[in-house]
């Protein structure tokens, strides 16, 4: 069902299942992610792609009465082992949510807060500048760093959230439909950004937008819902392959817009 990855994976998911109470949301997912690549997770609503994303940095366990089975290997180490602290995982694997959610603090403090609580000792102003430059936000906000972040536009807020994630220096950035709440111009800025960021980071992005997946990703994974309403991985591979020569007819049907 999967192709062999060409280089060593940074994340490897093995037999991953996830339950909300009695409801199995995700069934036996196996896939891996390669360093400095963008992987898009696509599929209809409720297929578990966001759940997969949240299992990768253990955000899923913040929801009460959930159960995770299987392994998520990060540099070969299972992050669900007892001796792994989720706090460390979440610093090294950052996440950006669907709705821009900056803290109700100044732009400056939004960037520095995460770094500070993680014990960052470098120059904070420099960190702010670097992070904002990497998200192409610096020129727009450099004169109003003390201003409350909630006064920025939605697109600027989302780029600030990405900058905030970069400031704690993660290796992987998870993005949960980062542009779905934004207008087309902001969306294209985010997409350009993803292209830039992939030079330094490994990116996993959930998206409903086929064109977006096609534009930004190197690999694509297609998820579906089975009759028990559980999500499962149909197939994954290079984006080109999934889009132009999928092996499973369901993938082709979904991508060509015949359902979902």
């Amino acid at each position, binding site marked *: 069902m999967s192709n062999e990855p060409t280089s060593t994976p940074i994340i490897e998911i093995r037999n991953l299942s996830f339950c909300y109470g009695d409801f199995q949301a995700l069934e036996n997912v196996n896939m891996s992610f390669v360093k400095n690549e963008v992987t898009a997770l696509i599929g209809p609503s409720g297929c578990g792609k966001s759940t997969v994303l949240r299992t990768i940095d253990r955000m899923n366990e913040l929801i009460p009465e959930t159960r995770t089975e299987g392994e998520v290997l990060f540099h070969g180490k299972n992050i669900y082992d007892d001796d792994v602290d989720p706090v460390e995982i979440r*610093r090294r694997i950052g*996440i950006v*949510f669907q709705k821009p959610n900056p*803290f109700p603090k100044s732009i400056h403090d939004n960037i520095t807060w*995460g770094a500070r*609580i*993680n014990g960052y000792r470098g120059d904070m102003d420099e960190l702010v500048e670097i992070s904002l430059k990497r998200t192409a936000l610096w020129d727009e906000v450099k004169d109003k760093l003390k201003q409350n972040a909630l006064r920025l536009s939605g697109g600027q807020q989302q780029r600030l*959230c990405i900058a*905030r994630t970069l400031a704690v220096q993660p290796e992987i950035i998870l993005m949960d439909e980062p542009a779905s709440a934004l207008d087309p111009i902001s969306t294209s800025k985010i997409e350009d950004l993803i292209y830039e960021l992939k030079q330094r980071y490994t990116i996993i992005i959930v998206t409903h937008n086929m064109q977006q997946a096609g534009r930004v990703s190197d690999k694509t994974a297609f998820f579906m819902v089975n009759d028990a309403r559980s999500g499962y991985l149909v197939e994954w591979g290079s984006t080109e392959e999934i889009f132009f020569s999928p092996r499973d007819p369901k993938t082709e049907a979904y991508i060509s817009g015949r359902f979902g």
Partner: protein
Amino acid sequence: MSLLPITQGAEATEEFGGVDATRRNISRRRRISVVWKMTFYLATAIAVSALVVLLLTIINGAFGFVAVKNSIDPVLLTGPDRSMNDLSDAELITIIEENLSSGLVRRYNSEKPLTDRNSADLVAIVRERVVAPEIIESWNLAASLFQPGVIQKYVDQEAPSGTTLEFRVWLTPQFLVRPQSPDAQFAGVRTAVLGSIWLILITAVVAFPLGVGAAIYLEEYAEDNWINRIIQVNISNLAGVPSIIYGLLGLAVFVRFFGPVTSGAFIGVTTTTDATGRTVLSAGLTLALLVLPIIIISAQEAIRAVPQSMRDSSYGLGATKWQTIRHHVLPNSLDRILTGTILAVSRAVGETAPIMLVGASTVILTDPKGLFSQFTALPIQIWQWTARPQTEFRNVAAAAILVLLVLLLSMNAFAIVSRDRIRKRRLL
């Protein structure tokens, strides 16, 4: 209202019963919404007028004519050209010594020698003891305004000779600083106000950290299991327990069981023989228990109102649970927590029954000086004054109610101002 032209496509279809039925339907629905709007308007109007009536009743009692008869006309003491304040201290002392019984003079001297007292103090003694005005009758504000003729006629014809009529404002600066007195004219609320302030402080200092701490535990840490659900239900029910039950609890626990602690005997504040747990500390602790469930519930609601997305982004950056609570949950719920706490505490300030049970005294002349003092409080004082037969004590009670209302209103105003300040700082 002019009718919209009926055009092709805009005409109501058969399913809606045609154009006329559609229009009738619209006007019927409009009538119904007007009726509901009026209902809600009426509810508001009834509530507001009840409050207005309450306030007017109190104001009505706090002002009005009094018919006063002095034992000695002040003019006889001072002479026609001078007022009492113009007299020298020596003259005042002479007046006191000439007119009062030697026993009473000795008592004043033993409290504090007359020669050491300032003139205001001496004038007060002369006014109270020598002039000794006696209230023959008192009237409320409505009677004073609308039936001055009846009142004048009463003073001229029925009252004993020498009775004069004066308009009295019962709520005066002196009323605030004088202690309790058996004579309505010289009674004040200082002891009661100080007692109430002590109660506010103790209640807030004890209930706020406990309440917020419990709310944080229940909202952020407690798992959703049956024990915690029982705790939650119990806290909600405790908020509805009658306050007198808390009084009984306070009596049993703080006054009796922890008597050696609440009386201060354990650190030697009082000697054990006359030690009693009926102190302002016991009452404050009882009121703290009383408002604790309300503070917990309102703090829980405040914490719950912090969006999950904010917690998620905090955790997503590698924050621990405590860092998330400390830096995001608490700062963003503090305004509501504070408002809830202050409203709960101002609720407690008005409580009478529980503190009566734990030993607020109705007649107490000394100010509370610390945690282990005996005390009285405004609602106790008001209750005691309204229970007296003399009509003038109702005026005094009305004035005390005004003091209590002002105290409560200023606490609520403080709550609103501090909430707005916190909010503004957050969104700047």
